[in-house]
């Protein structure tokens, strides 16, 4: 039996690799921003910690939590991609990512960003799973927009 193509695209090797071996996973000492995300549909929780330097650049980012392959891979990919960018650049990237996973016009995503995030495009064929993919991104946004200021001591 041939495997369903959309299923193959959703659970492609890059996604499974990120989900099994998440990058930037764990607590972050000296975080300047922390956000907590919760998906009441499945009960999954994620925390995103960031160190934003005086120049508004994301000097470091980590995430914690348990979740499905989609949410873990998305969080891992996100942290990998926004590290070193400015907050404004990270938010712009998020905008493009949201378009992509909702199956909307994502022409604002270009070049290498487009190539890397394209592995998540398969989510758009699974409307019930879009929230899994966006959880970490929304959590990062809430952290950057105030969230819970992390303790520095």
């Amino acid at each position, binding site marked *: 039996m041939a495997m369903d193509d959309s299923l193959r695209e959703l659970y492609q090797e890059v996604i499974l690799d990120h989900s099994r071996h998440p990058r930037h996973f764990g607590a972050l000492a000296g975080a300047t921003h922390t956000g907590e995300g919760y998906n009441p549909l499945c009960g*999954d929780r994620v925390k995103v910690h960031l160190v934003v330097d005086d120049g508004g650049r994301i000097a470091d980012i980590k995430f914690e939590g348990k979740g499905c392959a989609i949410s873990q891979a998305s969080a891992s990919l996100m942290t990998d991609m926004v590290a070193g960018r400015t907050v404004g650049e990270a938010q712009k990237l998020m905008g493009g990512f949201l378009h992509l996973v909702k199956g909307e016009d994502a022409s604002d995503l270009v070049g290498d960003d487009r190539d890397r995030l394209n592995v998540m495009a398969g989510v758009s064929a699974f409307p019930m799973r879009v929230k899994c993919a966006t959880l970490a991104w929304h959590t990062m946004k809430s952290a950057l927009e105030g969230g819970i200021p992390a303790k520095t001591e």
Partner: protein
Amino acid sequence: MMAQSKPRPVATFEPPRADFEILSRTVYGKPLVYLDSAASAQKPRQVLDAMNEFAITEYANVHRGVHYLSATATQRYEAARETARHFLNAGAAEEIIFTKGGTEAINLVSYSWLAPRIQPGDEIVLTVMEHHSNIVPWHFLRERHGAVLKWVDVRDDGSVDVDAFDAAIGPKTKLVAVAHMSNVLGTVTPLKEIVVRAHAKGVPVLADGCQGAVHETVDVCDLDVDFYALTGHKLYGPTGIGALYAKRAHLGAMRPFNGGGEMIREVTRDVVTYADPPVRFEAGTPPIIESVGLAAALDYIASFDRAAVKAHELSLLSQAREAVREFNWLRVIGDAPGKGAILSFEAEGIHAHDLATILDREGVAVRAGHHCAQPLMERFGVASTTRASFALYNTREDVDALVEGLHKARKILG
């Protein structure tokens, strides 16, 4: 010494697939395998036809109406109440209140019966396997009236220890609220014995029968339970209707719930007096068409040998349970003796939602998540489970498809 009695032989039960047209459809090009009946059951042609016929030929608003159709619709509505009474073996039709579902039935007891009786520090005893609909209404009383929730644990196999209720029920206990059957574990609680223990201390018992009424034959008189809540859509009936059985003595001592039309005796500018139960608790235009559907659903269930249906469902459970035993990466949660036809499990390294997505593409509909039972998830140290639930229309082939889908999920995600 009791004589050993062999299990009564049950006639082979043939799942009435033809009554459920939806079961012959495909999803993603694959035959639908519907294993989510614990969330909501499919509806047989008999139920849909009854509602349709009624709406086409006899529909009008109930009560008060002088005209022909209103009288006819009122008869049908009250006949549905009698059908529900018979289904639960309640003593009188007045003890059946129609609600919009099981959740509203429990909220009705919380608001109308218990809230006025709660003093700060009074206790409500629940089990950790309750559905949120049998938890949150009691949390309201904790938040608003200072009630204390006391939790009875379940054993590791999901079974309920009746003696634990003796320990939990104290002089301040005002109510014991328990599921007749767990929507996650499938555990069937020893309800009659719990009632005996609670009544020995003068404490009433509410049973959440949303699952229990589907799979067990309920006799509220024999159980001597004080309140029994059920919902129509899990009983092969329509959404938007449920029922609360309440002992007549309690009904008379319950304050009105929603205020509005129907539930009054007289309204003046200065005062209002209320109608007698059950309509005192049925403000507004009730779910009339749905009541006809519920009655048709209960008649449909009654048209089968219920012992044979139960044996059939349990044989599917047993087939699935045995099949997954060979998956050492899969942990079944809930193996209580005498449990009903619900199988919940956690897959090692595979999130329930990923599993359910892959099963879905195979045409297999299961539920994944916390099943509105988060305290139970916490008890078993899981964030979510995957749940397959079996109904009278399921077949051995459905179980085969589930097992095949699990193999595939493991191959993709393992």
